[in-house]
């Protein structure tokens, strides 16, 4: 019996963001935008959804008088990501 894939993660941009954040301790918004080739507006919306799900922490601060947004994956986010990958693998393995 296949488990449903997490709808929060099963989206191109949100999955890309989570895959970047799982590999690092924390990353700036600009780094995520560069690596995902997304627009600031779209990325902001998707980051907010990940934040609302409790998968990432978003820290807003100032650096050299400029606003800076830092994103960091949370423990529930790591668990969700690992579960999502395990489900994907079971789909591909049995499918």
């Amino acid at each position, binding site marked *: 019996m296949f488990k449903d894939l997490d709808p929060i993660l099963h989206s191109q941009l949100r999955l890309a963001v989570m895959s970047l954040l799982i*590999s690092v301790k924390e990353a700036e918004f600009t780094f995520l935008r560069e690596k995902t080739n997304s627009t600031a507006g779209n990325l902001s919306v998707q980051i907010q959804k990940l934040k609302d799900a409790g998968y990432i922490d978003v820290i807003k601060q100032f650096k050299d008088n400029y606003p800076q947004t830092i994103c960091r994956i949370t423990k529930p986010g790591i668990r969700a990501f690992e579960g999502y990958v395990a489900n994907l693998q079971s789909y591909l393995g049995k499918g």
Partner: protein
Amino acid sequence: MSQPEKELTEKESLDLIAMMINKAKDSYHDTGIGAMMWGTIITICALVRLSEIHFGYRLPFDIYWLTILAIVPQVYISIKEKKERKVKSYDDIYMDYLWLGFGISIFLMIFIINAIFRVWEPVSAEYAQLSGQAAAFKFREFIAPLFLLLYGMPTFVTGAACKFKPMLWGGLLCWACCLVTIFTTIKIDLLLTAFSAVFAWLIPGIIMERDYRRAKKELADTHV
């Protein structure tokens, strides 16, 4: 990825995850400035000390004080690099502690060596006075291997952890030179210390700096 979200297949999802993890890994680029600076300073110190011994002169100050002075630009470089970095990896923290531990070990080693000298030199002088010949054991001949032993550790670990072969080989070279210098005279010891500093730090630093510039240029080109 600015286009509307499309439904991902399972295979596409796994491919996307792998691609993004690789992109994240490729984003760490050390500027190499610190490695170049320390490689140059240790090489200069070792070669100047070698020339002092070979040509029989003495500078009015100990050339190794340069290493203390270099801490100031090192702190500045570290802070500047951290500020500029848009991403913080887990490795960064371990590397910071590793090199901080190395710095502390070096200063403790200098302290220990000076303490041994203070005890050994009067004994050696007394022996020379009583026997009419210099003591066969010369402690200064064994200082270089101790430092090369320490130089090898963080260099090797950094090279292995960051999968950066020039530093990994540089660390191994430090340990090879450590073994050799046990059996060589102080002049050869200093020459091998300079040689190790060039291959463990200066050359890897130059390679890192080149890679950093290339990565920065590639990033700039993609955002024109």
